[in-house]
Each structure stands twice: as C-alpha cells, then as structure tokens.
C-alpha cells in the first residue's frame, strides 16, 4: 500500500498551494510528510512521490539528497548531526566527529545496536559564532561542543533524559540563563 493512499485530502490541500500545471513544486511538503512519519524516505516512497507529482524518481532524489534533513535510511532515536563546514571544522568538528564514532561505534548511515543513535556530518547549520555545533533531530542546537559536553550529552540521552533536561558542563558564554539560575 502506498503511503499517500489514505492521505488524498491532505494532498489536495497541499496541491492548492501550487500552480496546477506544476505539481512537482509540491515535492518538499511530500518529502517532509514521509520523513516526519516514517523517519526516513525509502526508495519506494521516492518512486511514489515521483508518480504523484508526474516527474521522475531521479528528480525527487535530487531534491531529497540536497537537504540533510531527509534521510534515505532509517536513523536512530537520536540522530546526531555534526556541522562540518568551515567554522566548525576549524573549531574542532573533526575531533568531535572522531569521538562520536569511537564512542558509538557507528559510521554514517548506521544505527547503534540499541537503536538510539545515528550520526551524520552536515553542511553549515548557520551558528558559526558558537562553533562547533551539533544538532539532535530537529531540536535546538547544542553549541560550543567539546569532548566533555559531548560525553555528557550522550550519557544524558542514554539515561533517557529529554534534551532540555541535560546539563552540559561549561558554558558558551551567551546561553539564555534559566529562570532562577
């Protein structure tokens, strides 16, 4: 069964936002819907989207692969994205990446056996002043990351804490102070 088979009403609303002769303009909302609900966009879904939009799977994959948000393979519960563009790289993103790989024992495209973690290098997240930056899933950035903060993060996540409950050691100098702290 296709993913969008029971979402015809939703599709109709989406297509209303785009010119009728240019259905393929709706490629982003469709990809996003699949990513949100299934955690990744499989080749079958790519083909399905292409079919719905009247375009080719190549084109859908071209759009999808441009954005690091869309995953082609299933990710862990926590998908750690390490910014590896210039500022972060200069500030130690590579060391951070190596630490992550060593700590978790996984490479890009893999998931830890407990199903918790997967990792990915991404292009600039736009927070160069707090480099290096790590993002977990769609959550707010984790800034000024270093080995200690990374370890604390992993420990916190492993112990089942929510991201905002995790205290990272040290500070970045400009965090929003919590009330009463």
């Amino acid at each position, binding site marked *: 069964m296709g993913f969008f088979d029971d979402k015809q009403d939703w599709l109709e609303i989406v297509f209303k936002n785009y010119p009728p*002769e*240019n259905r393929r303009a709706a490629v982003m909302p469709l990809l996003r819907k699949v990513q949100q609900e299934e955690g990744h966009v499989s*080749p079958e879904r*790519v*083909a399905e989207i292409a079919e719905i939009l009247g*375009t*080719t*799977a*190549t*084109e*859908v*994959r*071209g759009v999808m*692969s*441009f954005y690091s948000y869309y995953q082609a393979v299933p990710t862990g519960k926590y998908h750690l994205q390490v910014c590896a563009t210039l500022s972060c790289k200069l500030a130690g993103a590579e060391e951070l990446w190596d630490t992550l790989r060593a700590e978790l024992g996984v490479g890009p495209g893999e998931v830890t056996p407990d199903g918790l973690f997967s990792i990915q290098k991404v*292009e600039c997240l736009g927070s160069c002043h707090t480099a290096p930056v790590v993002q977990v899933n769609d959550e707010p950035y984790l800034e000024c990351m270093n080995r200690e903060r990374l370890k604390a993060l992993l420990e916190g996540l492993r112990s089942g804490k929510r991201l905002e409950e995790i205290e990272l050691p040290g500070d970045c100098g400009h965090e929003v102070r919590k009330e009463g702290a």
Partner: protein
Amino acid sequence: MPKLRINDREIEVPEGTSVLDAIFHAGYDVPYFCSERHLSPIGACRMCLVKVGAPRKGKDGDWIRDEEGNPRIFWFPKLMAACTTRATEGMVVDTLADEVKKAQAGMVEFHLENHPLDCPTCDKGGACELQDRSYEYGLFEKYYTQTQNGLKTVLYSRFAFTKRHADKHHKLSEFVVLDRERCIHCKRCVRYFEEIPGEEVLDFIERGNHTFIGSEEVPLPAGFSGNITDICPVGALLDLTARFRARNWEFEKTPTVDMNDAFGAAIWVDSRSGRIERIRAREHPETNEIWIADAARFGHGWTVRDRVTAPLIRKDGELVPASLAEAEAYLRERLARVRGEEVGLLLAADGTLEEGYAFAEAARALKADHFGFENATRFPAANLPAARFEELLSAEFALVIGDPAEEMPNLYLRLQEFLKGITPAPRYYHGTPIADLRLEERMPRRKERLAVFAAYPTRLHRFAGIAGVYPPGSAGPLVEALSAILNGKRPEPVPGVPEAELRRVAERFLAAGSRAIVVGAEVLEAPEAAQAVADLARSKGALVFAMPPAAGARGLEAVGLWNPRGPGWEEPGARFLFAFGATPPAEVLASARLRVLALSHLDPQARAHADLVLPAKTFYEKRGYTVNAEGRLLELRPAPTAPMGSMDGLEALAFWLRAMGKKPPAAHYREARERLHERYRLPLDLPEEGFFWRPKLRLAARTGKDEGELFLQPTMWKERMLRDDRVRTALGAPRLRVHPATAKKLGLAQGARVEVATRYGRRDATVALDPSLAEGALLLPAYGRGTGRRVPYRLLVPAGGEA
C-alpha cells in the same frame, strides 16, 4: 539593437544578447564550460568572468557624464559571468584586464582541483574543453611547473589537497558511461535531459563538494541519451560504442548525413583503419541543430562485422566467394536473352538521389514494369507540400498523427522547441548563440498547442493538450473525419476516438493563426487520408511535415523511382530481380528466377534466396545527394571504410546493365549529378546557403489496403542495427504489445515468449499486455521494415513455452 564596446571593438548586437555572445561576436574569446548552444545559461562554472561596466542615467533621464561630456562608465563592483549578463546600450566589456585573467586562471585551478589526471587514457583527450581551456587560460607558467631534482615537473595547483574519489565506471546504459571523478558539474547533461527531450532522468545528487551526477532511471531510456556525450565538456560522459577505440586525432572525420530516417540529420562519421568507430552529431542549425537520436549515433556497430567483401555466387545451394570476373560471366550468361520488361530494379530506403535517378532511368529504358524503393508508402510523400523544420516554430497549433520520436526523432526535438515557444535564435559571427538568454531551465510546455494521436501512447502524448490512442489502422479514418469536420461536413465515426475530441481538435486548429500537421507512415499508407492532408494544407494554409519511413523517399519519388501501377519493393513481379542495399521480402525473391542482391551484409533471406550477391557500400560510404523530409538537398560524403571492391548503387546497376548489354544511365555519381543538373536544375555542388528541391508533384498514389492484424510499430532502430550485440542488449527482446482483451481472445499470456512470422521474416518476441492500447491492437516493433503497416502474421510458440 544595443551598441557596446568589447575591449577595443565597437559592436552592435540584437536585443537580448548575452555578454558572452557579444564577446565572441566581436571576435574575442572567453572561456566557458557550463554554457552550451540550445541550453539555458546558468552561470554555474564561473569561467566566463569578465569586467563589465555600463553608463547610468541620471534623474534627468540623460546619461551621467564625466568631465569631458562622455557618458561615465560605472563598473560593476565584481567581475560578472558573461553568460548570464545581458548586453545593454553603451556597455563596456574588458576581457583582457589582469584581474580578469587572474580570475579565470583561478577558476581553471578550481576546476582542476578534483579532476583526475587520466587524460592519457581518457577518450576525450585531445578534444576536451577542459584541457583546451586549462592550457589557454590556466596560469600554466606561474603555478604549474616546478623544478624537482633538476627536472621540470608539472604542478596542477598551488594547493595540496587530496583529490576527491568517486565512481569511475558508472554505466548509465549500454551506450553511455559516466566517470564521476572527471565531472566538473557544469550541469549540461542535467539541463539537456530536461530542456531538450523533456525527460528528467539525470540530476545532481547531494550538494556542495559531494555533488555527483546520478539517476534513478538506469539504464537511461534509449532515444536521445547519446547527445550528452557530445556536450560533456570533459570525459565524464563517454560513448561506450567507441570506448578506447582511438585517440581523437587518429580518427578520420567525415561530415555526412544520417540516412536512418528522413530528417537528414548532419553527422560526423569517425573512422579509423577502415572501421566506423563513432558517430557524432554535426551542427546544422536549420535541421538537427546539434542533436541526433541514439539510433543514428549508437547504431553503427553493424557496419564493421561480417561484411560482404567479394561477390558470392550460389553453387550447389551455397553462396561461395567468387571473383568479379566470374560474377560478370555468371550474370552475362543468365541475362543474355532477357527482355527489359522481365527485369525488376529495387533500391534500398537509404538510396541517394543519383542512385534513384539511375534506377528510374534504367527502368524506363528497359521498359521494366517492376521497380521502386524500399518502404515506399502508398501515397508519395513528395505529393505533400514540405515546410522547413524551422517553420514549425512559428506555428501556433500542431496536430500530430504518428510517433515523431520514433519515425523522425529530430522532429520530436523540434516539437519540444515548439512546445516551449522557442523561435530560431539570431545568428552571430560565431554562429549559434552559446548563451541564449531567452532559454530558461524548466520552461513550461504549452500543451494546449499540441494534439497527438497514435496507435499507442508515444513520448509526445504527455506533452499534448489533446492526446488519443486509436486502434491500428484508424489513422486514415481519423484524418478523413477531421478533414470532414474542418470542411463543415458530417464525419464518419473513428474507432477509439470520440467525435467530441475531434471537434475540439478542429476548434483549436481553426482558432490558431498558423497550424502545422505532422503525419507519419500510417497516414502515408492511407492514400485518401494523405490526400486530405494535402488538401487541408492548401485550403487551410497548414504547414505539413510528413515522416516517410524511407529516408530518401521525397527525392527518390521526385526523380521518378515511383511506380504506382507496377509491383515495387513489396510485390512479386519480375523474373530477373536486382536489388541494391537491402533484401526485399521473401515472396518477392521466391517468385523471381534470378535474384541478384547488392548487399553490405547477408541476412537470412538473402542467404536463402540470392543467386548472386555483390558487395555493396553502406550509406556511410556513399557519395551523393539526398532530399530530406523538408525538401532540402543534402550531401552524403564517403567515410573511408568500404571494403575494396564494394559498389554503390550506380556501380552495381552499371554492372547489371552491362551484363545485359545495355549502357548504364550513369556510371558514376558525378555523371548522374550532371544529368540531375540538366533535367532538374539541381546544383552540381551544394551551395553553402543550402538548396531546396520541392517540385510540385501530383504522382498517382498506389492502391491497396492493409489486410493484416499485426501493426508494425515505427522504431528509430533498424533491422541491420540489431546485428550489434550492444544494440540488442540495450533494446531487449522485442515486445509483442497487445491489449489485454485481445490477448485473452488470442490466448496470449503476459511474458510468454513467441515467434512472430510475417512477410519480413521471423522474430522472437515477448508478449506484453498493455491496457494503454486500444482494444484489438497487436503491435510489434518494425525495425524499419514495413513501418506503419498492418500485415498478416503467424504466431509460433517455441517448445516448452506457453502462450
């Protein structure tokens, strides 16, 4: 018409010209990789950076002037990409400034950063834009040489990065291979697929430094994929049929014309040591621009293998090699007392005008009743008026009945231009604009301008506002019904096409200021319908584009190789048969007493029936004129690949006639051309500006009707091309396409393997149920023989198979 200055030269260019074209038009050079003729300029490679300035107007509406009263030039703060900058009035362009040179050299360095150094083993080496531009515009002296241990070595960059490694042999199809390391991401191939044939089968995958060319549609659909190997500026996309066959400078390059369809696309035949190794598109702005179809490009492998190199005489049931003298003696003996009327003279579909003339003259002199050419349609294409392909672009509405993508692939590409509303570009000093600013990525196709009908859904169907599929055989009734509606009469019903649909077509046809009608073989096989098209063209002022299945049809008909009453290629008649270039159907051969075939290759029918086989030249090896579908005279030039002793049609016909004791009408192409010049005022040498030959003809149509049930579907691929393993692999087993209901009636199951026997021979095929067809439809690829006809057939199920 803006006037501008390029370095020291003042020029005037048409409105909308890019700075890049203005620079070339002024006679200066600027490097570029991403721009390409007929593709949208996108400014991706940044190679064409130049210094540009323009005057500005003040508040008073007059130019802002300097102290001397001249308009003051305001330079753009940064260098501009010339390909995406529009030339404007008073603009000043500097392509020679130091900062320009330095920027271009820097871009060369960037392009080489990840480019592998495998030029010595790269097929593009020697014909590579990146190589040329690196030498011309890279700062070779300054950065790229160093002395090491007293030896001068080459450094390709000031930086020592590791090169990016990627897939080097990524096969995109049987014909095209992609080397991802060599790719410089100019995006020409990606844009080509979307903009020219309208299939988005290549795209950039990933982004930034990780970008690569990828496809989910592998193998790429065979049709128009080969053009990307021509336009790739580096060796990333290569023609697999020519892989590692030669260095570019070793090829003998022959400019000639493709004779696989009637479009007359210009090609380069690259040969080496007497073998055709590669076909490339040759630019001809008025016809094929810079594109050719895959069949024309990749379908040349058949020429090199199993050539007939000496005359073959049948002895004890076997064809055995003989000398030319033996062949002559053999023929003299058998033709000694033959009367002219007993002779049949037949010419292949790719015969030249000179050959056609000689065959027609010989038939007339002999009073032979049996003559003609292969794939002649019942209605002569030459009776229809011909419009230039470029005129199609000025039409507002086009009605297509047939399958241009297969019948005349280049016309399909022209129809794509028509759909986008592109008109012919202005011609510059350097020719076609390299960065035509009128072109954009993803231009909308104006579907309302097109109506398409065919016996199956064609590539064009999804671009058409009105599209229909009729059961094979209904092309004629459809045209006649439409013509009735347009003339205000009651139409006869057309199976599979509702009358309301036809009325909609008629409405749009009449509403359009200028119209075009494109008709394929199916309509030309229905004389009344074809005549109706001719009448419509006259009464409604429509442009007509006929797609005859024989490449030379228009010319061969005009020089008199048209025989409406006697038997032709398809019908038995003559007792002494001479055919040049292809093998007539078995029943024609079987009914003759003597069968002489001049062939470049033997096929099963020739093996079974021929008494004497003479070695023949292929169209790649002949010299002569041809007339294409628009009535344009084109010239074939010979590639040096014909085996010693092989003959063109004139030589072979002369050989036959001399054996009869007759004088040949022309023994040599030049002689035939002089006759053509005397009789039809054709030029002795093709003038540079081109020549059209469109005599007003009213030849009688041939009578008869198709009797069979099996529709031979047009294909750009021809029977002879199937000799090549690569082509066979790429095309897969031929599909016997059948409507599910019809399949049920015939007892055919999806995927069943059957052998289909027709008058053209036997073919293995796989049954494919296709609900997109009309009920009753049964389709088999024609591969050139009997295209557009319905023929009787027999189905043979091989042992172990079930149908």
